[in-house]
């Protein structure tokens, strides 16, 4: 009897004619990587260099100039204050609205559409609309006058509280819809059964929100938080339209240094501040929301 040789495994045999191909993944992400590198990566590197380099080499002059400017610290303070007040307010409103939509009221598609409209609006246009409401002879003061109340100079330069209030209202109106859209999408991805199970097992509305809905919504909230905070650091056009330089914000300062003061180096230094702040908060959110979880498998 002859011993049969074991059958050769087809996988082990490489066809010599098989051409080496570029993996499809490279074709898919290649163009965007190239695009990002050319249009974002390179300018970013240039921007950083511009902030810390003059014709003689490395220097901290521009950063010193930025910090010593009388508008710098007010701008930092205003931006931070805006973020600290606006983000929780926005998330509260957006989650509330999303839960209202989930309860399936009549015309809920229409409500969602109307609530999402600000998303489609240019921020400068939004700022101008709110300017027509808040200026001394704007809609708000006319309305108050109609009620027999004296108008308030909402946007007066010496009234920082009302300036902040106006920018906050306008920004919340303009940008909450982004959070809403993300939260609504997230809620739609959570099967209703979890909420129903929690109801049957005796959970009240707040218990369900705290123990079931919000934890399951965490991935969406994380995305929305990072996006909104980064965008909030860049708040500019609305505040510019409403207050000019009376309520300075960091990006507004960048703009002023670049255009009015013709100093791109200090403008780049300010941009660097925003970049670093955005990166730090993103890392903070990613860490904070991960560690609270119950293990890493989800």
């Amino acid at each position: 009897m002859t011993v049969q040789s074991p059958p050769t495994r087809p996988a082990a045999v490489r066809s010599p004619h098989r051409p080496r191909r570029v993996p499809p993944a490279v074709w898919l992400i290649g163009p965007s990587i190239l695009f990002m590198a050319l249009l974002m990566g390179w300018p970013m590197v240039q921007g950083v260099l511009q902030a810390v380099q003059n014709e003689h080499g490395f220097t901290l002059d521009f950063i010193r100039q930025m910090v010593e400017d009388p508008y710098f610290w007010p701008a930092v303070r205003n931006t931070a204050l805006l973020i600290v007040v606006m983000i929780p307010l926005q998330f509260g409103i957006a989650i509330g609205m999303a839960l209202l939509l989930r309860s399936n009221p009549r015309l809920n598609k229409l409500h969602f559409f109307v609530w999402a409209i600000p998303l489609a609006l240019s921020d400068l246009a939004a700022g101008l609309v709110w300017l027509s409401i808040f200026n001394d002879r704007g809609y708000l003061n006319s309305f108050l006058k109609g009620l027999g109340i004296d108008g308030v100079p909402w946007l007066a330069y010496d009234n920082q509280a009302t300036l902040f209030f106006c920018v906050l209202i306008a920004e919340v109106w303009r940008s909450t819809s982004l959070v809403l859209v993300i939260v609504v999408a997230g809620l739609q991805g959570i099967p209703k059964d979890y909420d129903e199970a929690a109801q049957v097992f005796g959970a009240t509305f707040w218990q369900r929100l705290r123990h079931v809905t919000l934890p399951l919504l965490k991935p969406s909230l994380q995305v929305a938080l990072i996006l909104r905070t980064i965008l909030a650091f860049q708040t500019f056009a609305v505040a510019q339209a409403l207050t000019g330089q009376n309520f300075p914000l960091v990006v507004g300062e960048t703009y002023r240094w670049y255009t009015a003061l013709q100093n791109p180096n200090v403008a780049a230094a300010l941009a660097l501040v925003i970049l670093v702040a955005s990166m730090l908060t993103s890392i903070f959110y990613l860490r904070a929301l991960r560690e609270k979880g119950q293990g890493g498998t989800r």
Partner: protein
Amino acid sequence: MADISISHLVKTYPGGADRATDDVSLAIKDGDFTVLLGPSGCGKTTLLRMLAGLEYPDSGSISVGGRDVTYLPPNKRNMSMVFQSYAVFPHRKVRYNIGFGLQMAKVNSKEIERKVQWAADLLQLTPYLDRLPAQLSGGQRQRVAVARAIVMDADVLLMDEPLSNLDALLRLTFRSELKKIVKDLGTTTVYVTHDQSEALSLGDQVAVMRKGRIAQLGDPLDVYDAPADKFVGGFIGSPPMNFISAAVTDSGDALRVGDQNLHAPSMLRSFANEDIVLGVRAENIGVATDRSSGDIPATVLVVEPMGSSVLLTVDVDGQSIKVQAPPTFRTSPHQTIWLTFSPNTMRFYDGATSMALEAK
């Protein structure tokens, strides 16, 4: 633990033309295991969801233990439920999932720990208490859902097709386990299923539903043996009950099936000269290869050996009938065999209304 009394429940879903439940009334004794059985769309899940408070009826009322709960929100009803999808919270460990209801009720943590341990032992989940649901198999997740429901000391335990997502073997083993657990617990249970074998094996009483109404309510064996109408007979049993067109003779003492005569029970006297439908289960028809008195001939069309029996499809004067023969019975297509019908297993239905006939 409590009895349930459902009366005249009507529910129409917004946008739906038909009533999901159409004037349903049902009484469930304390500690009873009631199965709502029916094809999809018959209203059984709607009825269960109204019991849970996840839907509210348009009219009618539900009372549990004498308390009207019709429009009470779910969290105030003291019920627990096993969901078809399990609905085990994916972000929390098994331990937390089982104790969820107790924690919501602010039971002290020692007591929660003790009860969770008890339920985990009962359902063989102890080794998995510190795992996340994603790390469990489907069968284990199902056990978590059951454990979560039984720790609650609820008045009523609701189950919505809890076994339908398990594979066939697991379903069979878990079914008997579930029956024992619920029996020992003694809680009033309402169980929804479309699987007739689950209904017959689990229930103290079975409510067969069709188009939003209860077609028959009774002991599982009664429902099986004496279906109240053709729908119930056709829905329960595998193969379904045979329905054979027949006519009662002038004298009322014989039943004509095609050209054959069968001895008619005395209750048919009052239906002399009327067309009726004879209902008989496949396993209640006797078979023989040779003629003896009272038998009617049939031609074999299909022979399907099932292991424990042989399923025959036979033709009696143009009507096709399923017959369950003993496994040793040998026959082949085109052969003629003789069938015996015993009077106490024959059921009679009105051809027009499909309802069971009662002596006039």
